[in-house]
């Protein structure tokens, strides 16, 4: 029998659920794919999932940006996670750029971006 309580919890926190699924997809892609570009894509998916979870912590349904206005009965969202994730995105972009530049160098050496192929070429030419 399906536990209604668990399902409703999942449904109410669907953004966390989605983030965790994305995280696992990214993790899996990063570790199992031989294609280096796909590894980097997986890395980005994984980081995006972590960002999503961080940002959704601060989200409140119907809340607005924390700018003090007339009337004090507003619901404000927590701006801190968003500010943190801006930093996180910058870090992720620079890591991606650096990884891609390394892959370009590897491609110049081997003529392929496939990790298995590279391993084969290496063992072929000792």
């Amino acid at each position, binding site marked *: 029998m399906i536990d209604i309580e668990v399902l409703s919890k999942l449904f109410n926190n669907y953004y966390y659920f989605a983030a965790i699924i994305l995280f696992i997809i990214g993790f899996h892609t990063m570790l199992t794919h031989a294609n280096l570009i796909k590894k980097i894509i997986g890395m980005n998916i*994984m980081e995006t999932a*972590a960002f999503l979870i*961080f940002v959704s912590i601060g989200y409140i349904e119907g809340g607005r940006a924390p700018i003090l206005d007339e009337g004090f009965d507003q619901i404000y969202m927590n701006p801190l996670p968003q500010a943190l994730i801006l930093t996180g995105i910058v870090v992720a972009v620079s890591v991606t750029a*650096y990884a891609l530049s390394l892959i370009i160098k*590897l491609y110049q050496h081997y003529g392929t971006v496939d990790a298995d192929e590279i391993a084969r070429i290496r063992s072929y030419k000792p």
Partner: protein
Amino acid sequence: MNLNYEHLPVIIVALLLLAAFLEPIVYRHKKSWAAPLVIASMAFFALSSLYLMAAVNYHGPFNYYLGGWAPPFGIELEIDYLAVFLLLTFSVIGLIAIVYGLQDLKHGLKDEVLGWYFTLYLLLMASMAGISVTNDLFNMYVFVEISAISACAIISIKESRECIEASLKYLILSTLGSGCILLATAMLYMITGHLNIGYLNDVLPRVMSHYPNNILISLGFFVVGYGVKAALFPLHVWLPDAHTAAPSPSSAVLSGLVIKVYAAAFLKVFLKAYPREIFLEIPVMEIVLFLSVLAILYGSIVAMVQEDIKKMLAYSSIAQIGYVFLGFSLMGQRAVAGGLLHIFNHAMMKSMLFLAAGIIIYSTGIRRIRDMKGLGVKLPLTMGAFTIGALSMVGIPGTNGFISKWQLALGALDLGRPIIVVVILLSSLLNCLYYMPIVINAFFGVKGEPELEIGKVPGVMLYSILFLGFGIIFFGIYPAPLLAFLQKTVTAIL
């Protein structure tokens, strides 16, 4: 009271970052100033760390609020005994490695990338200083990422095939670790609303019964994240290639300092942020203990069969980081002090061994252990220093390696775990099995058929390893002040 030294931690990080980004400009327009600039910044780092250590030792630890914003809103730096201990270790070893590196790098690197190398080196140092002093989990994550990128780039700067491959492997696994750390931080922020380590420690006991899953997930991700970065046993696969391919000064810093800074971050998160009751319910420290025991045995056994000297040293690092984690995961007073002491001692020994290996490669071009027969006659001082390092790795009394192993063994006995002592003894014997043949071969081995071509060893390189060798003996004979300081450190943490 006027505390004019309290801005110093921020100034250290800011100045290192500033010097890092000035370095390429200086190198392009005024080439002869680039090397003095990097030495001057590192010397400033070392001197101010020494001053901070004296100040903290005299006046006690202090907290610094960045921009004057008090926590929980602002970022807090906590300059306690642990932070100054780490700062001093990193700065002194870093200074020696770069003084050595100035000669070695001209030999190993292309001329136009030397300025960039200094940039990366200073960035690495700045991020390690940042990790040491920060008291904020997200701030720590940012510094961890900076150090990950600069550590990878410091390997790939040689642009040979091996370096690029090793660096990419390191980068991918390191990013995996960062992702795990970020997710774990998110889990803690979700249930407590704090990123400050001190506040987390206050709030977590109250919320831990309501959100057991979050705590469990965060613990798991932190272990994996910091484990990958510090090369804890099953997550170490990137380390041997990366540390072998890098230029020698980089290897010394990567093996001696960079993996340690993540172990220290692990200590900060697990023993300062999480309340101790959690470890009674969730046996995560037992798992780390088990992994570190495996790391000690595995690293030593695999190191025995290596042919390349730098690869052997790299595998030995996997075993040695096991000691550090062993001390931390036992969570006893003397065990944690032993782990911290091993950070300092291993930083000295391993950087000296890597630098000595660098001299051997620099002057003879030999990398294979088998070819090192009779080298002790040709390079007596280098091999003499190597011998001191090897003895210290084995843990012969009179060297600093003995002191930290002794502390760890006593710490294990305090907690009633004699089996750990057996592991430490066994690993010492294994260390003996792979370090001693090199020493014996070098001094007593019969020379190979072709006469070795010995290039001239620059004095600076030789003096830097002799200085480290002197440090190994000094702290092996006179460890009392260091031990007393670590006693205070540990009392403050536990």
